[in-house]
């Protein structure tokens, strides 16, 4: 499993864009990148997944450069309700194991 490194915490204000970068220098060819979001007192939930270039959905965008050694989760115009822990995971398509790390705690202030 590729090791990931992401910031421990980030602060932001309502209406700003938040970008969380995850480093995964030893990512393998068949690894994909997945981000989960965890609100206080809840289990994590899937938000976005990608293999290369850019992926966008109604919640976030995921930017993956050509070398795939890092990825950036972008949350547009955050609100107080986006305060959560965000986890970056890297793993093979057919890997049954699913390991999380410490995640990035994003705090959005008014």
């Amino acid at each position, binding site marked *: 499993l590729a090791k990931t490194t992401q910031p421990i915490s980030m602060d932001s204000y309502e209406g700003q864009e938040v970008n969380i970068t995850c480093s995964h220098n030893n990512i393998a060819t068949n690894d*994909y990148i*997945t981000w*989960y979001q965890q609100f206080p*007192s*809840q*289990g*994590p*939930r*899937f938000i976005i*997944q990608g293999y290369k270039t850019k992926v966008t959905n109604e919640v976030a965008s995921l930017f993956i450069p050509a070398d795939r050694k890092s990825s950036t989760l972008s949350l547009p115009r955050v609100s107080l309700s986006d305060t959560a*822990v965000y*986890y970056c995971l890297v*793993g093979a*398509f*057919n*890997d*049954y*194991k*699913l*390991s*999380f*790390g*410490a*995640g990035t705690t994003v705090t959005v202030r008014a």
Partner: protein
Amino acid sequence: DVKVTQSSRYLVKRTGEKVFLECVQDMDHENMFWYRQDPGLGLRLIYFSYDVKMKEKGDIPEGYSVSREKKERFSLILESASTNQTSMYLCASRTTPGERGTEAFFGQGTRLTVV
């Protein structure tokens, strides 16, 4: 909607007790997981299973065991609870990962306190 249900939201047990944490999913998922979550440490994988009666150690299996007798149910067992097992425990499930991987669905968690 996928539902992953953990049997208890809060649990208090005594040191040395045998503790069972139950998890049931209703989507016929093959892959199930148990994690514990502690402040500053994120989610740590204890055990996972990819089929009935199949189990694999995760990253921190010491002091725990699991049982998967039926596809929908995955149980975490603390053979002899200790105070350092006080934690939030989270169960998750997903279908078999394939060409694109699959998302995991989590239960609400069980906050276990061992006194």
